[in-house]
């Protein structure tokens, strides 16, 4: 399988926010835990809307949370 070119720092940010669980993040942004797992492991690139919701939940900008592999 070819992983997505979109990278992210969700795992690090979750732990910086008091070891937030994947389920808690999923509930907060309106996604399923499986989707958060897929995003974190680089198997799924979220839509722009979900990316904004995740970034906003961490109080960061989208580019602080997501990047693009060169």
């Amino acid at each position: 399988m070819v992983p997505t070119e979109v990278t992210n720092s969700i795992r690090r940010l979750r732990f910086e926010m008091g070891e937030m669980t994947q389920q808690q993040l999923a509930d907060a942004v309106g996604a399923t835990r499986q989707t958060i797992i897929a995003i974190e492991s680089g198997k799924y690139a979220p839509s722009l809307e979900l990316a904004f919701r995740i970034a906003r939940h961490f109080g960061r900008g989208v580019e602080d949370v997501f990047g693009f592999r060169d």
Partner: protein
Amino acid sequence: MSNRERISWVALMVNLTAGGSYFANILLLPASADLFDSRVAHMSVWVVFLVIIASEVLSRIVQKRAGGGGDAADIDERDTAIQLRAHRNAHYVLGGALVAVIIRIVLIKGEPDSTLHNAESVLDVLMKEPLAVMHVVQLLVAALCLSAVAFNLSRIFFYRRGY
């Protein structure tokens, strides 16, 4: 394994079991069997009900055992994307199967029932003989079954892969 993947496995097993038992019965009937016969019609209806009811009941059991909520109850963008991809693959399979049925009908022309002496079973008729209406119906049912199997296999594949 996520609940949605479990539900896909359940649906796939129901499709394979119901479709397999249906065609195992139909294809082994003698070539001269009347496919308009009420027993065959009852079996067809029974299989359709079995697929619908068994899929629904088993899916609810899987959801209930998982606690009802969570990813079994909610659909997000990834689920929708996987559903769309699975539908697309099922559509391709259905289209291909329908083209195969059309080619099969066109390749062997002739009056139905005129050369049944060469066939021993319904399977022989479907492979070698000019087709009657109910034989075409069986091929179309097979195409639908293949499409449903492709749909569930695609869902399982995408859920296992992540997307």
